[in-house]
Each structure stands twice: as structure tokens, then as C-alpha cells.
């Protein structure tokens, strides 16, 4: 072995040794503990940082998960139960099963149903419009049609229909993150339980006015007459403030309520056609 090789070996080893020793002592002196599971959980999350969980980004949520006593109320809507399961596995806990949900727009105030009374000329933003005036129609509860919900959706699951001037949800893309629900200043959008074959039945109105004014503002407004509540056998329908609401967790999709509504405020979608009353069906779908 030549002397160069020898010198090389000796000097490098000494250097390595020295560095190792210094580091060893410093590391001892300045030790800080950070839960390694936070990293693991974060890796299991989708990383969309959408805030659907209610936390500021995925890492924040991971920290919350690690700290949480139970997973009650903690859910990543984007990743769904699979993600929660793997997070639970990492932390050795059981995750609650969450039922998949999908957003619906509870307003049917198309120009045809709800004639325009004013024209809005402010900044195209629903919250701004909502805070300065009641709306372009006589209904001060309905959709303002400026698409703030659409802008909020990170998953290309919404668009504004130019004819109805209402937002439309593309069920296949919707991950039920709830961003649109939070964005809408009028609480028009709701996350409802997903059902087989994308079936939906819900009151497509949020107007709390009494029957007369409500009807005057919009042909398909819910007038709070209570007929649907009477026919529902499952206690799924409640009426409050002149407005009916169908609880998607209780609804059994029996379709009894839809025909009794005098204004057509209840919508049913993706059901097979009814035999005798086809005429009405067509009207609602239009």
C-alpha cells in the first residue's frame, strides 16, 4: 500500500471520527422531541390542502389527528374513509365510518320561475351582493347567480348554467369537501347523503317568507304548506320558518312527497319515470 493511500485513510478516518464525536455530544445536549407519527399521517393524507377538514392544510390536520383522543368529528372528505382508515392504522385507532355525501343546490329560481325585478351592477361576488341588497328577484333568500361557490370548488365539480343562471354540481367530481357550502353567503348548498344510482330527492328552495310573498317571488318556492310532511312515513320532513326540509339521513326515497307539493318545490332526480304522472315529471326535469 502506498503512502498516499495510507495518509488518505488516516486523515479521513480521523476527520470522520472527530465530526462524529462532536455531533454526538451536541445532539445529546440539544435534544428536541417531535412526534414522528405526524409525518407518517401527513403522508397518508391526500395533500390537496383544500381545508375541507376544517384545518389549515393537511399537516395541520395530521397534527390534530395525532393529538386527538378520538376521531369523532375529524374527517378528510377528499380521501374519504380509506384515508381515515390508514391514518387510524398508523395511530392505532378505529376511524368512524363516514357515509359519502354530495353537494346539492337548493334553489330553482331560474329567470322563468322567478322573474327579475332589478339588475345588479356591482362586483360579481355573491357575498358582496348579498350584503348590499336582497337580490335581482323578489326572493331575498335565493341564489344570486354570481358563482362564488363555483370559484370555491377546487375539484371542477361545479359550473354556472347560463340558461338557469344557477350553479350545477357534477356529482362524479364532487368530493363533498364543503368548500361551496362555506362559500355561499345564503346557505343554499347542502351536503346530502349519497344514494344508490345518484338518486336525489330534496326541497329545492330555501325561502323563509310566508306563502304569499314567496309564491309571488318565485313560482316554485316552498310555501311551507306542510303537505309533504303529512305524507312522509319516516319523519324525514320538518317544517320551520315556512320552509320544508328533507333530512337525507332519514329519507328512504319512497317518492311520496314529490307529487303532493303544490308548487313543485320538491325535486327528484335520477329516478325511473313514474308510470301514470309522466307529465309532471317532465316539467320538473326541464
Amino acid at each position, binding site marked *: 500500500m502506498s503512502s498516499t493511500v495510507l495518509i488518505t485513510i488516516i486523515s479521513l478516518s480521523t476527520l470522520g471520527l472527530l465530526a462524529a464525536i462532536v455531533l454526538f455530544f451536541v445532539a445529546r445536549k440539544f435534544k428536541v422531541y417531535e412526534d414522528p407519527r405526524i409525518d407518517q399521517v401527513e403522508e397518508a393524507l391526500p395533500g390537496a390542502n383544500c381545508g375541507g377538514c376544517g384545518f389549515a392544510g393537511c399537516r395541520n390536520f395530521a397534527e390534530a389527528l395525532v393529538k386527538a383522543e378520538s376521531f369523532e368529528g375529524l374527517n378528510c372528505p377528499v380521501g374519504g374513509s380509506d384515508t381515515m382508515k390508514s391514518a387510524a392504522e398508523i395511530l392505532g385507532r378505529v376511524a368512524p365510518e363516514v357515509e359519502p355525501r354530495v353537494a346539492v343546490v337548493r334553489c330553482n329560481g331560474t329567470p322563468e320561475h322567478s322573474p*327579475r325585478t*332589478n*339588475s*345588479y*351592477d*356591482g362586483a360579481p361576488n355573491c357575498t358582496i351582493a348579498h350584503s*348590499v*341588497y336582497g337580490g*335581482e328577484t323578489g326572493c331575498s333568500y335565493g341564489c344570486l347567480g354570481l358563482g362564488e361557490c363555483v370559484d370555491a370548488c377546487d375539484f371542477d365539480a361545479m359550473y354556472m348554467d347560463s340558461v338557469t343562471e344557477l350553479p350545477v354540481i357534477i356529482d362524479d367530481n364532487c368530493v363533498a369537501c364543503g368548500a361551496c357550502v362555506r362559500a355561499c353567503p345564503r346557505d343554499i348548498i347542502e351536503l346530502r347523503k349519497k344514494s344508490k344510482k345518484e338518486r336525489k330527492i330534496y326541497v329545492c328552495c330555501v325561502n323563509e317568507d310566508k306563502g304569499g310573498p314567496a309564491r309571488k317571488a318565485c313560482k316554485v318556492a316552498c310555501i311551507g304548506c306542510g303537505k309533504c310532511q303529512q305524507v312522509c312515513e319516516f319523519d324525514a320532513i320538518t317544517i320551520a320558518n315556512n320552509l320544508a326540509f328533507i333530512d337525507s339521513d332519514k329519507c328512504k326515497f319512497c317518492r311520496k312527497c314529490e307529487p303532493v307539493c303544490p308548487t313543485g318545490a320538491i325535486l327528484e332526480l335520477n329516478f325511473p319515470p313514474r308510470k301514470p304522472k309522466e307529465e309532471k315529471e317532465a316539467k320538473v326535469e326541464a
Partner: protein
Amino acid sequence: MNKLLKISPSPHVTGKETTGKLMFGVVIALLPALAATIWFFGWAALLVTAVSVVSCVIFEFLITKYILKKTPTINDGSAVVTGLLLAFCLPVNLPVWIIIIGALVAIGVAKMTFGGLGNNPFNPALVGRVFLFLSFPVQMTTWPVPRGFATGYADAETGATALSILNENYDKGNIDSLLNTPGSELPGYSQLFWGEMGGSLGEIAAFALILGLIYMLAKKIITWHIPVSILGTVAVFTALLWLANPSSNIDPLYHLMSGGLLLGAIFMATDYVTSPMSGRGMIVYGIGIGVITVLIRRFGAYPEGVQFAILIMNAFTPLINTYLKPVRFGEEVKHG
């Protein structure tokens, strides 16, 4: 009254100023300089200007429409201003294809990549110019001498600009003799003022640029802060150098009127989009440009430094905007 009543948040009246009118005002302010350059360089100058303006507008149209898929924004006139100013800092004998590349870079790279009007951190026309300067140094530093009307400039006689002559001679210590020798290559003050000398299109005639400044100040298109702080800083800095060593430096007046300083200080440093927004910020920005300009002119490799100085201070603009806020109400006068 059969229409629907309009509803909107206040205010319900608006001022008369629009983006388009402001840009048009800048174009008007540039007309004297355009006239001067046509006077000295003939139709070739108009050709360069036209090519630049038209290609800027066309590029903006094509990019907004086909690449960004937005509604084209050429009506606001900002592309016209960019085109004009780009042309104004090019030599008159520049081949057309190079001008077109410059326009593409100015609009495509410096402006539209950032989302168009209002979003670009760097001055588009200057980016276009510096890009060309660094890409085609030979073509960008051959300056035809003015021959008046009607002649082509493809094969014109070329000469050095005032600043490049100075740049060659600072270290030789013969500046004062150069200036005082009749018939020396170095242009005199009246040439600087009226514009009969080599240089890029828009920079030669000081009087035309000053007319533009007066117009823009009168029309409130710009405020005094930026031009005054730049010119003031250059004057002070060069005066100090000159007083310390008159044979290796030229006097402040000469500095002010030569090169692209006036064009830059009046029209390019004042670009709204890329300059600070508060008065205090503008002054800091102007001082920065002044100092860097003189440093580059006097000590750097390039005879002229305004273009770089403005771009460098453009980079500082966001920081200036963050740290030099307007004076808030309640900050200045405390309890009376």
C-alpha cells in the same frame, strides 16, 4: 321607465379617467420625441416604430386569445405604449426581424407570462430592449449618425454615441479637452438638446422628452416623484464626481441630457405597474435608479446604465411597496 332598476353598492358615480385615456396620454406625450426622431432619421424611424407597435399589439392579441384564452385586452392601449417605448430605445438601423423578437419578448415573456397588464414585475419594453441588447450586442450597439430625411439606414454610416465616447475616455483623463475641442466627435450641448446625434430613436432629443414630461405632469398622468428623484440623484452624484476630478468625469448637465436618462426617467421608470405606489417609495426607487445608473455609466462595462438600473429597481419595487407604506391617517399628527 321600463327597464329594471340597477342596484349596486356605492359609490354610484365614477371619475372620467380610464386606463385607455391614460395610456393614450402617454402616447401623446411621446409624439414630440417621435417627431424629432423622424426629423433626424427620416422614415426609417417611423418604420421601426410602426413595426414595434404593430407587433406588440398583434402578439398581445394572439397570446390573450389563443394561449391564455382570455378576452383580448389590446383596447387598453398598454401594448401600444410598450411598442412605442421599445422602438424608442432601439437603433434605427435594426433589422426588422430583431425588432419583432424584441416585441415578442416584451409582450410574451415580460408581460403575458405574468398574466398581462398590471401583473408584470418588470418593465416590458425594457425587458425587450435588454434582451435584444444581450442577444445581439453587435447590432444593438451600432448607431447610425442622423442623415435627415428620406434615406435608408440599412447601410448607414455609423458612429459612437456620446456616452460610448465618454466611456472610452473616462480613464484616459481627457474629458474636458474632448468637450472643449471644436470638431471633436463628442456632441455638444445644443446637439444633445435638439437631438442631432447618434443614439436610439427616442432618446436623442432632450427638448422633446421634456415637453412630454410637462404634458404628463399637467395631465396628472404621472407625479413628479420619480423623474425628479432620478434626475436629482444623477445630478448630485455626477456633480460630486465631476468636482472631484473634472478631467475624468463629465458635468452633470451633460449626463442629464445624454443617453437614455431622460427617456428612462420620464417614461419608463414611471410605468405604474412596475414602480412603487407610495410617494415615499417612489423617491427611494428614484434614488436607487439614479445611483445605479451613474455607477454603471461611470464604472461599468456598458456606457449606459438606465435600462439596467430601472430593471434592478423594478425588482426592489415589491419590497419597497411592502416596507414603505403611505402615511396612514392618525400616524402623523398625534393628540393636538
